[in-house]
């Protein structure tokens, strides 16, 4: 047939030439390491760590290997599409391996090699950066990974999540996809990234996909987000989380928890609503701390519930 393939050879899926090529390469790489390749969690989160595949699965004794892209929202980082490096919505590629394999650093370096970072040409460094998420009651030790002086990933050995010791410890890798793509594509402005690997008319840039969204959401985050509604939503989510935790609590005190994940969704919700309120500048410095503590209490309660489920390793 003459009109055989609509997919033309003009589309290049090499990681150095397209944003999606970079994602596909990382997915293949980690799939080959035995990870389940998940899709993004269907809720607004501030970072890939919030995905239950990381937060909840990092708890309990069961081995777990997963990798996924997670769109991450940082309302305060919006710059109306005018800053070449800062976005209020961006992608993280998240890898979680429990227990961490002994060669996790080597695996990470091999993944950089796979996406076109030549380790004979580039200066890769592991620079101390201890990670802590006050809202998740989580912390770990690790590094920011530098490539020629630029931070391209976070590498963390989780020590505690939701206030519980991780036993065994999980290794978490978080790749900043836009930054990495800018690096391998040699682009100075995120909006200039080639998204699909097409050339000529077929080329779709990151700006084509996201510039308008950045403008609209910056406006929303800083100027318009309905704060009365958000305050209500925060309280509602907090209450719902508690309700679901109570409703799913083990009966007779011996069984398993039956609603840890729906409850945790509400914790995620509360956290994102808090970020929006923070961006709107309606939370004072002193209140800020108390909101963070409230989310952390939810995270802890959800973690405790998860440990009473099959996924959390309860007998």
């Amino acid at each position, binding site marked *: 047939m003459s009109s055989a393939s609509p997919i033309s050879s003009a589309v290049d899926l090499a990681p150095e030439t397209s944003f999606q090529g970079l994602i596909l390469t990382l997915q293949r790489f980690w799939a080959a390491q035995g990870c389940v390749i998940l899709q993004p969690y269907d809720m607004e989160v501030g970072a890939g760590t919030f995905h239950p595949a990381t937060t909840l699965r990092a708890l309990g*004794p069961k081995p777990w290997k997963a990798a996924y892209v997670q769109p991450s929202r940082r309302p305060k980082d919006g710059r109306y599409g005018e800053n*070449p*490096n800062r976005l209020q919505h961006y992608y993280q590629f998240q890898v979680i391996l429990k*227990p*961490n*394999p*002994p060669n996790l*650093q080597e695996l990470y370096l091999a993944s950089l090699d796979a996406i076109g970072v*030549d*380790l*004979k*040409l*580039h*200066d*890769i*460094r*592991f*620079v*101390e950066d*201890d990670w802590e998420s006050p809202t998740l009651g989580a912390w*770990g*030790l*690790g*590094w920011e990974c530098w*490539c*020629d*002086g*630029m931070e391209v990933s976070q590498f963390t*050995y989780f*020590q505690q999540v939701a206030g519980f010791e*991780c*036993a*065994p*410890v999980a*290794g978490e890798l978080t790749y900043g996809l836009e930054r990495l793509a800018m*690096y391998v594509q040699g682009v*100075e402005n995120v909006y200039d990234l080639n998204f699909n690997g097409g050339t000529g008319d077929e080329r779709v840039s990151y700006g084509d996909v996201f510039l308008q969204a950045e403008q609209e959401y910056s406006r929303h985050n800083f100027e318009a987000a309905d704060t009365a509604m958000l305050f209500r939503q925060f309280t509602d989510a907090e209450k719902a989380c508690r309700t679901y935790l109570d409703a799913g609590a083990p009966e007779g005190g011996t069984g398993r928890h039956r609603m840890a994940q729906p409850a945790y969704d509400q914790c995620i919700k509360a956290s994102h609503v808090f970020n929006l309120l923070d961006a709107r500048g309606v939370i*004072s*410095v*002193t209140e800020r701390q108390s909101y963070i503590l409230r989310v952390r209490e939810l995270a802890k309660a959800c973690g405790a519930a998860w440990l009473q489920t099959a996924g959390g390793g309860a007998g």
Partner: protein
Amino acid sequence: MPDLLLELRSEEIPARMQRRAADDLKKLVTDALVERGFLYEGAKAFATPRRLALHVAGLPPRGQDVREERKGPRVGAPEGAVQGFLKSAGLASLDEATIVKDPKKGEFYVAVIERPGRATLDVLAEILPQIVRSFPWPKSMRWGEASARPGALRWVRPLQSIVATFGPETETPDVVPFEVDGIAAGTTTYGHRFLAPDAIEVRRFDDYVQALERAKVVLDVERRKDIILHDARDLAFARGLELVEDEGLLEEVAGLVEWPVVLLGTYDEAFLDIPAEAIRATIRANQKCFVLRQAGTDTLAPAFVLTSNLVASDGGLAITAGNERVVRARLSDAKFFWETDKGIRLEDRLPKLDTIVFHEKLGTQGARVKRIASLAFALTDDIDADPRLVDRAAKLAKTDLVTEMVGEFPELQGLMGRTYASLQGEDPRVAAAIEDHYRPVGPTDRVPTEPVSVAVALADKLDILTGFWWIDEKPTGSKDPYALRRAALGVIRLILENNLRLSLVGHLFDAAFHAHGRRRAFQIEFGDRTPEELEQALGALGDDAFADTLGNDLLAFFADRLKVYLRDKGARHDLIDAVFALPGQDDLLMVVRRVEALGQFLETDDGRNLLAGYKRAANILRIEEKKDGRAHDAAPDAALAAQGEPEERALADALARAGETASAAVAGEDFAGAMRALSTLRAPVDAFFERVTVNADDPALRRNRLALLNALRAATREVADFSRIEG
């Protein structure tokens, strides 16, 4: 003599922890050896990002043999005693004991126990795993499968291998046989992560260092620093530039590489609009790179030096380009901050300070600024500073905390404030005070001398000190989270080095506590009262009495800090105590003058003898007062003394004269004069003790002589409490 080589190889150790860890390793291992009687000739420890290493040279192959003789019961002793002896000495029967004859005690058994010294290798195998398990990292972690079990090994980052060998130079050394959590000590290690990925075998320290060097690892941090510094200077020099040296950065960078490769990058000259310190801070903090300046000037050059860890196949082109890109992005941010900040006048930033909590019990930065301003204003007379300028400087002093630039680089606080103040046309003294009011930051930092700066600097520190005293969060032991000791030292240096006459308790603390007291009362308890009601409430609170107690407590803290400060300058701490023991000593300049005069006086023969005379008098008084059950503090009766011995009369006359002269001299702040007056007492005191019996039979005479001694005690108190002086 055999050597120990130990290497603990791990994933990347934070740069800031490496030096301390190497020191700890050396101390722990050598202490454990010495404790067990193993002496060594020398030890040196090393750290790189991926390993801690230790070389202990000149250890004995084994410990000393121990021969011990244990005395047993006499021959023919009861069976129970014999059995006990055999058991405790580890003998099977009495045949193994020897019999010793003693002319007095007769025959008794002696067991000779010989314990051969333990092999050093075995002792090391016992010591080393314990040290690894309990290593004092400031922060440590668990990892991998083992972390599922309680009691898993903790290390700063995952520990990957251990090399531990022990043996003499001429032979193949032994591996120290031990393992920790499944990691067995051996002879295999790895060199540079990228440049030499293959395993290397090592035997002893000398070949270890060479093998690492071949595998692109410079083991010694001092050598890595040296390489970086010299290469950086050379690179700069080749371009007609100069390296802006930075020891802290150098140390950090040397902890980030095993094989330093120094490269030079550039950036657009247009960025040089940004203040130089901000450029330096950006490039230093975010990129860990050095900045450069035009040779022989203070002007920054649009270039930087980076230290990579790689001999790249393209000679470092890609690495340089990558770093330049990041520096460019960072400087764009800094330029944006700079431009944004310039658009807002500092005074317009004041309301923002009201939203920033300084400390939950001490209110906002805004409240703090108000206190500092009122306190600085109260100081203007003492310091002879223009009150308008002081007020302005105090109000603007903290405004740069809410600028973008300081938000990003907190270490630029003060400096940015000064820059923005100059830019908006403030008086140069105000601009300088905004920067200098944080000073002195440490014992070697410059002390401001410009009166406006001095006033705000004093107010800033006194506010912190009185504030934390007020809420009872004083430094304890090694804990001083708010750097209050440093603040007190700052006040001391500001006062002494500017020759300021200030009464701490009566004037400064009082004003500062008042600011806290009113604010606290107002904010916490009486927010909704009228001013009249507030005054009443303040009275009821007893703020003044409370502040007095705190003030004396804080003065004691200052006395301690002053002691540390003067001790560093060679003064005797007992003399400082002797002066502070007098009432009302809160004028630091006068305290120091008095201590100096006292120190000089006690260096003279007269001073030493008078002190001896004082001690003798004080001893006698103590004993007699105890005996009599009452103090002999009445004034001596001159007429009675005149009837006694000539020496008694002479002393009474001398005391009357000296006391008066010393008192007048002290009032005139002539401490040397006061000491001279006291020195006239030496001869009459010596003569008195030589010729006169204090405990005379006549009770009236005895009483009067004791009163004379008491008068001596009182006269010396004009200058110091001699009882506090040692020697």
